């Protein structure tokens, strides 16, 4: 499987990061507590290099926090974790983050939103704009370069956000319920696009949608219980994006639902 990206990598860190373009990440000893309640403790999660890891769980179980711990966005005493990369270098600066809520800047056009990282780091804007325009064309918004987020639909906005995450050209991409606000069909289309564009990167996809996890994930973890624990991952067969009507996907969906609802899924249960 070759990456579908037609946009060449760019930026000062491209050369440095190249040998380890795909990097595996390991989160260990993760703990989170709120108001004296232990949400999880001693949790470990591995994101294999170049693979998509999906993390499912009921709301409030702490799955977004787990993602934010990897992104380095959780500061404070309530949450802690150790994050290591399999190439031994720190993860800082090698992560792109696609947030749950639409995080585009309302005053900037689509192109400027995608090129935001370059602008913030003071990189030359000429090449950055050209690359941003190419990425927007790739997500199907080549004709809306100057459109401000307020004039775009929800699906278009998340496509701009996806282009912005790709623009950063980081080996690790963290997605926190990226499509939860979209209608079903738009969500399916965006999942296809995401699978195509993010192939070959190390991706963590946090979602509450079992179908989304099973369509995109190479490994699907379910986080549940209090304190929460991670099950052994499910590994749907075939390459993402899998068809929504794929019998294997549908069968695993039943298993995921069982795990999410917290029923005992150990074999040898009571027979009818």
């Amino acid at each position, binding site marked *: 499987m070759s990456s579908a990206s037609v946009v060449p990598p760019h930026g000062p860190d491209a050369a440095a990061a190249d040998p380890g373009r795909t990097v595996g990440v390991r989160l260990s000893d993760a703990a989170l507590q709120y108001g004296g309640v232990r949400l999880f403790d001693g949790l470990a999660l591995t994101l294999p290099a170049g693979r998509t890891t999906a993390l499912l769980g009921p709301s409030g179980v702490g799955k977004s926090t787990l993602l934010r711990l990897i992104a380095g966005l959780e500061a404070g005493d309530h949450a802690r974790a150790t994050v290591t990369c399999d190439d031994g270098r720190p993860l800082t600066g090698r992560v792109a983050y696609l947030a749950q809520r639409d*995080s585009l800047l309302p*005053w900037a056009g689509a192109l400027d939103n995608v090129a935001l990282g370059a602008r913030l780091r003071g990189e030359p804007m000429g090449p950055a704009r050209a690359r941003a325009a190419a990425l927007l064309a790739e997500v199907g918004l080549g004709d809306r370069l100057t459109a*401000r987020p307020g004039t775009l639909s929800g699906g278009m906005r998340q496509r701009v956000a996806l282009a912005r995450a790709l623009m950063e050209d980081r080996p690790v991409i963290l997605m926190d319920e990226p499509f939860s606000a979209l209608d079903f069909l738009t969500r399916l289309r965006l999942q296809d696009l995401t699978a195509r564009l993010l192939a070959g990167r190390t991706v963590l996809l946090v979602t509450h949608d079992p179908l989304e996890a099973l369509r995109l994930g190479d490994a699907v973890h379910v986080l549940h219980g209090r304190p929460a624990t991670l099950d052994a991952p499910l590994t749907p067969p075939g390459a993402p994006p899998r068809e929504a009507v794929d019998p294997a996907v549908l069968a695993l969906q039943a298993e995921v639902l069982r795990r999410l609802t917290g029923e005992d899924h150990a074999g040898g249960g009571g027979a009818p």
Partner: protein
Amino acid sequence: MMARVGRIGVTVAGLLALWHLAYVLNGRRDYLLPSPAQTLETAWRRLDTLWGHALVTYGEILLGLALGTALGVASALALVSWAPVRRWLMPVLVVSQAVPVFALAPLLVLWLGYGLASKVAMATLIIYFPVASAFLDGLRRTDPLWLEQARVMNAGRWATLRHIRIPAALPALASGLRVATAVAPIGAVVGEWVGSSAGLGYLMLHANARMQIDLMFAALALLAVFAVLLYFVVDATMRRLVPWQRETEAHDG
């Protein structure tokens, strides 16, 4: 646009009719409340005098607006950029808001004289607080999600301030400026009442003392027209400055 102009025309005509009605109900006592027609006639007859004083007051208001806005914006930026400045000056700013600025007018006239400076200072003070506090509020309420994005993108503090926090605070600054514009004429006129040798406030005070109520109303009308025009100009400018605000509201609504 035409409909809007039409609505404004009807409103103005309605207000003038009410004024005239009040004049009739008041027994046509010109020394208490002159009619709109008479006010207009006086304004036309004394236009030279009025216009000379009006230019002084307009100048004070505009200078005050420019200075107050510049100082307010600069203070907000300083307060949000340097923690020590914030720790020391924030309480000063909050407490100083409680001081009635009008009570300072006699002092300002004493210190800065009867001329332009004391009125500009007065207008500046009145405009400064709404602008500074609104902009500061906007700068401190940046959506945390945008700041997190900037952090993941390895942005520096200044780049984040310039490309995210300041643009994000512009709608708040615009509201502050609208409030400031509405109160700006008060500062200039109060300054003129306390001590001056020119300006619409000065003219009104003297016309009042000589029972030239029609002249006083003409001066008041010139002040009101300017205040309304200024508000419309500032409001339109702010709309152009933050065009995304309406889009977002339209989306939410």
